[in-house]
């Protein structure tokens, strides 16, 4: 009998594996010198992220209890912060189902860190400092820009994303030569914004420099605070892009447990409407917020994508020893 065709070899070169090791060492050095504590939190948890656009992996214990693989270490790290850890960072694997492509692998490496006392602008500064020294060649002064979310759409898609209604957003995608299936043509404003972001705006961000996008609309706040003193209210959230690739997502963290519970419940409602699984709410996180999360900002940075950008490779498989197809 002939054995099945197997691909046992790694997809990353030895040079890239060495670059990965070197980069992780420099990240640890960076945080060590700034007295940020390295921590580890469980990859398997009884609760999970409720984000309707995110599908968790889960598994069963021997006694039949369902546990979820973390889609990010956020909830557990916030519990550490509430318990008085001070500034912390973690380098760990995160897991998201159905995410596979040029910049996605269902299992990937995240660097996540939290800074008590920082707002999201201060954290952007620190992200810039860290990424700046990891890039090859290192970032030059003026190698970075800050761009409001609304302005990014105006500049790169020629549309005001706050004023435009659904048909305006739809027309804008057509003008950019993007053809979609009928199922996108409903009154889903957020869907059109996501479409314009991924197809038109994002590919133009971070060309030759770092682009930090900030002042997201309140509808895209996720777990960030919302600033109600401006009109319209904006989310205190940022993202980092380099060469059209999204590298990091950060929040001035929501600390209000009641609002957090409300957002979880909204997510669950959406999930239930869409017929998606309903993971249990993370009551541990909510209790920690109730106890008191210090005012802080946190950010997650994709290490695999960073390695792609440093090495000039074009597919995530080239920086992974074994991507999911060979795992």
């Amino acid at each position, binding site marked *: 009998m002939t054995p099945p065709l197997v691909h046992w070899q790694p997809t990353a070169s030895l040079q890239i594996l060495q670059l990965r090791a070197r980069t992780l060492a420099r990240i640890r050095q960076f945080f060590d010198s700034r007295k940020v504590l390295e921590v580890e939190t469980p990859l398997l948890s009884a609760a999970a992220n409720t*984000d309707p*656009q995110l599908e968790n992996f889960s598994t069963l214990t021997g006694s039949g209890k369902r546990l979820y693989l973390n889609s990010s270490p956020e909830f557990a790290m916030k519990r550490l912060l509430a318990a008085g850890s001070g500034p912390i960072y973690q380098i760990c694997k995160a897991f998201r189902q*159905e*995410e*596979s*492509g*040029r*910049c*996605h692998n269902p299992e990937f490496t995240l660097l996540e860190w939290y800074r008590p006392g920082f707002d999201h602008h201060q954290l952007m500064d620190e992200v810039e400092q860290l990424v700046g020294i990891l890039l090859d060649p290192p970032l030059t002064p003026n190698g970075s820009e800050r761009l409001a979310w609304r302005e990014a759409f105006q500049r790169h898609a020629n549309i005001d994303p706050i004023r435009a209604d659904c048909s305006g957003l739809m027309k804008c995608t057509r003008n950019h*030569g*993007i*053809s*979609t*299936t009928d*199922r*996108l043509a409903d009154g889903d404003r*957020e*869907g059109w*914004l*996501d*479409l314009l*972001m*991924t*197809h038109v705006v*994002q590919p133009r961000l971070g060309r030759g420099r770092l682009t930090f996008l900030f002042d997201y609309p309140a509808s*895209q706040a*996720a777990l960030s605070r919302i600033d109600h003193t401006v009109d319209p209210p904006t989310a205190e959230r940022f*993202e980092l892009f380099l060469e059209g690739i*999204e590298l990091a*997502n950060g929040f001035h963290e929501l600390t209000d447990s009641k609002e957090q519970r409300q957002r979880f419940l909204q997510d669950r409602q959406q999930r239930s409407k869409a017929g998606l699984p309903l993971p249990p709410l993370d009551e541990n996180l909510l209790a920690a917020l109730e106890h008191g999360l210090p005012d802080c900002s946190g950010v997650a940075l994709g290490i695999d994508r960073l390695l792609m950008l440093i090495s000039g490779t074009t597919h995530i498989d080239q920086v992974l020893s074994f991507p999911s197809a060979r795992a």
Partner: protein
Amino acid sequence: MASYSTNEFKRGLKVMLDGDPAAIIENEFVKPGKGQAFNRVKLRNLKTGRVIERTFKSGESIEAADVIETDMQYLYSDGDNWHFMDPETFEQISADEKAVTEAKQWLKEQDICTVTLWNGVPLSVTPPNHVILKVTETEPGIRGDTATGGNKPATLETGAVVQVPLFVNEGDLIKVDTRTGSYVSRAKE
């Protein structure tokens, strides 16, 4: 009817798009930091050959196209239709001119071709990569001149015209690469 979800999309997959069969050429997964994921897909319409770009919401499903590729022997043409036979079942089918537009100038009786069938009807025919055809018309050859460059047109038994070296004569058999339409070498039967 079978269907495929976007997470099954990959190069070569045959699907129905706007009522026509199409093959996926490229599939890119894109997702904003927080929000809806999409599959940005390039497809080739298998009837017209045109390349189309289309974006799907991730998780959406699309009808599968009943498209298969099968090896068949070319029998003959009656001018309107081109007739092929399954070498195992001896079942015969006929293709119309649209299906053989590209291929017909290379079709030689008894050659094995790849026939793409949609719901059992030939959509396109791909000739073998290399065919051996007789030169029916060309300027007389220059005897002994096998080294110096220079080409001339030659008409082949199927009507195809290819550029051949000067030493090739009428009645010669030559090997042609059908993918590029170029002369490869002289050939023996």
